[in-house]
């Protein structure tokens, strides 16, 4: 019993994470001496690092019951800004600093716009971020003039995405750093507490004196910031900026969050779960490649894993509590 509790605390409340353990076990057996090696783990982490960084910020709107579909576009635009700035200002370290800060600022501005529109006009975030996705990709095209902007120098910029620290790619460090930062914000600050609370019951929060509008805006800013950061890392990793960078990353991010136990209704989910979720997706892709399944068929496995994870979770909860919304089947069981 005690042991069980320990494992539970490690994985959080979500049942879905057990799937990860199962998948890893299978792969370890299938690919002995290859899958479960430090080098391979490193390679998995590297492969998820870009959207792993995004996940750390995109979780904020998700926790509020919102969504941010513009993260890919923001990443492209921020990367484009940083690279063009560095290229235009002579590849100096100073230019790198300004470029990176500028890219982040761009992400933050997009976040503010989202937050303000969502709070002021009560429009569905799904739609508004889908529309701004167009605009932000447009900005990325403007910045790059639809060309590939190569940026091989300076070393400081290349280090962001391609460097190594203690034998571990720097982008993984950034991902861990962002995850920890995000963890601290979500779990150790008042703002983080408010995010969960507003996501769980906005009206109760208002009556408890929480400035929910501010909480929402800041959450979208967080999302924009991490998207921008991941875009910059991606640009550095590829030593270039292209307008269509990070297309489709919105899906990766959502998948990671959902697999990691976040509920799109808000109020539920943890950064730990999200990173585990991202890791699981990475593990699956990696595992399928190692086993030699063509990338064409990865989707089938992904679908099954996601559905299994979420359905398992839903099932367990459905059985366990009356908390679940909806479902007429419950009404009788609920006590007066």
């Amino acid at each position, binding site marked *: 019993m005690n042991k069980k509790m320990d494992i539970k605390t490690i994985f959080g409340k979500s049942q879905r994470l057990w799937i990860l353990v199962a998948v890893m076990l299978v792969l370890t057996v299938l690919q002995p001496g290859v899958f479960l090696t430090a080098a391979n783990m490193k390679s998995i982490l590297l492969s998820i690092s870009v959207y792993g960084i995004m996940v750390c910020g995109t979780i904020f709107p998700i926790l509020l019951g919102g969504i941010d579909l513009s993260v890919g576009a923001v990443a492209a635009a921020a990367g484009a800004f940083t690279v063009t700035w560095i290229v235009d200002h002579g590849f100096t370290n100073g230019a790198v600093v300004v470029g990176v800060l500028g890219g982040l600022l761009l992400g933050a501005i997009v976040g503010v716009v989202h937050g303000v529109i969502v709070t002021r006009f009560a429009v569905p975030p799904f739609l508004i971020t889908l529309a701004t996705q167009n605009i932000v990709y447009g900005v990325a095209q403007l910045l790059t003039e639809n060309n590939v902007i190569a940026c091989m120098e300076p070393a400081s910029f290349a280090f962001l995405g391609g460097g190594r620290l203690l034998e571990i790619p720097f982008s993984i460090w950034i991902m861990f750093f962002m995850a920890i930062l995000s963890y601290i914000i979500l779990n150790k600050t*008042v703002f983080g507490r408010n995010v969960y609370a507003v996501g769980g019951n906005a009206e109760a929060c208002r009556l408890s*004196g929480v400035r929910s509008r501010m909480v929402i805006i800041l959450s979208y800013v967080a999302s924009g910031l991490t998207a921008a950061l991941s875009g910059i890392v991606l640009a550095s990793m590829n030593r270039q900026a292209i307008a269509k960078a990070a297309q489709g990353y919105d899906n990766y991010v959502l998948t990671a969050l959902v697999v990691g136990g976040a509920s799109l209704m808000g109020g539920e989910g943890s950064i730990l779960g999200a990173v585990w979720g991202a890791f699981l997706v990475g593990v699956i892709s990696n595992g399928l490649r190692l086993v030699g399944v063509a990338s064409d068929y990865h989707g089938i496995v992904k679908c099954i894993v996601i559905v299994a994870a979420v359905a398992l979770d839903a099932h367990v909860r459905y059985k366990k509590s009356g908390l679940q919304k909806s479902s007429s089947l419950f009404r009788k069981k609920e006590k007066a």
Partner: protein
Amino acid sequence: MAALLEMKEIEKSFNGSPVLKKVDFSVEPGEVHALMGENGAGKSTLIKILTGIYPKDGGQIYWNGNPVTVDNRKDAASLGIGVIYQELSLIPTLTVMQNVMLGKEQSKLGFVNAKKMKQKVTELIEKYGFAVKADEVVETLTIAQRQTVEILKALSEESKLIIMDEPTASLSAKESDALFDIIEQLRKDGVSVIYISHRLEEVYRLSDRLTVLRDGETEAVLTKEQINPADVVRLMIGKELSEATASNSLRKSDAPVRLKVDGLTKKGVFHNIGFEIHEGEIVGFAGLVGAGRTEVMRCIYGADPYDAGTVEFEGKPLSKQITKNIGIGFGFVPEDRRNQGFTPLLSIEKNVALTNYDTLAKNGFVKAAAEKKLGVDMVERLAIKPGDSQIPVGNLSGGNQQKAVLAKWLSRDLKLLIIDEPTAGIDIGAKDEIYKILEKLAENGTSVIMVSSDLQELLRVSQRIIVMRKGEVFTEFSSGRITQEDVLMAESGILTKEGEADE
């Protein structure tokens, strides 16, 4: 001739505590039968058993003399029992006709015969002279009109019995009158009505018979001639109880005024509300559902805007922002606990901490140890069960949820606590604990405004009782010996004892 409905020796208990103890209840065809009783007397449980929402523990239901089982709403509907819910259960984006016919559309191969259905609904509307049209969309209707749609829905099912639960709670006088006309019409048509209401004058005006429930037992069944407001009130409360719960502790406070409300008005909801609250005082707000008490409190707290009037706190005009009001010592426990009181997925600790981050945090960072300590302290201080501050509030029982909501405020330097229906849906033991908490708060100088529909509670806890009626302050009891009867009469607009009525 057999009665239309007969419920015999109905029993029901929740968690071992009996709610209905062998209740008998019967309705004749074409009669308006009022069902009255204090909160917790067992009215709604009885109705829920009748409509198949709760299973009964014992007893038998007879319909036209035949024993029947009602396991779900469908069973009830097929017998001919229609219910007008307090919270309307219409589909807002559909038309009146679609709502009325929902689930029983006349159709051929899946295609509805709109013409025929509209004709049917229009006929019904005309027959009863309702003020709605068949093709109006429900969300554009007023609440009174929506209620008539609910009634139409019941009528269209050819219900023999329609249950109305506090139907006039949110209606204006004119709208109520229209409803009474409808009920008259129903009676003429041979449709029976079970009419649940706290409003004596309505019951007096409408009902053919009246059953009074008290503590899960049938106290009396009165015929029209026997119905007399004062008697009914006495029956509802019970003589011994009335004596036992009478309050001798009413008094005026001479402590400084903490909150002064003057001329507070919100169009169509309440107007010209004025009262004063002193330091360390517990003031009860009595009134029937819909009297405007909750709305007044929300406006004072800053949750809703108001149209006119002034609110002064310790001599200074009060801000209209919740956050600022909390900063100067306000606390607020809302009526709708589940939707407004707490965040169900979060633990007791996190819920309690939500209002306290001004002290529990430094530079935006939560002092985790202090937060945890507060949670543990509060669980201990309020004896919240189970005694673990990490359990999500949504998983607690009603009483413990309410304690958790209260706990949000208790560690603060509270100057004024507004608490709306503090013990609704809470068991007796927890009630007492909550009263003790309120009393202790007052002893320490906090002013408490308690909105309550529970007369016993009002008398037990309050030092003064302000009675609201139809959006206005009706009277105030602040001295002498007051019984539940007095308050209930006042709520119904009858003054037995001269308080300091504003009028």
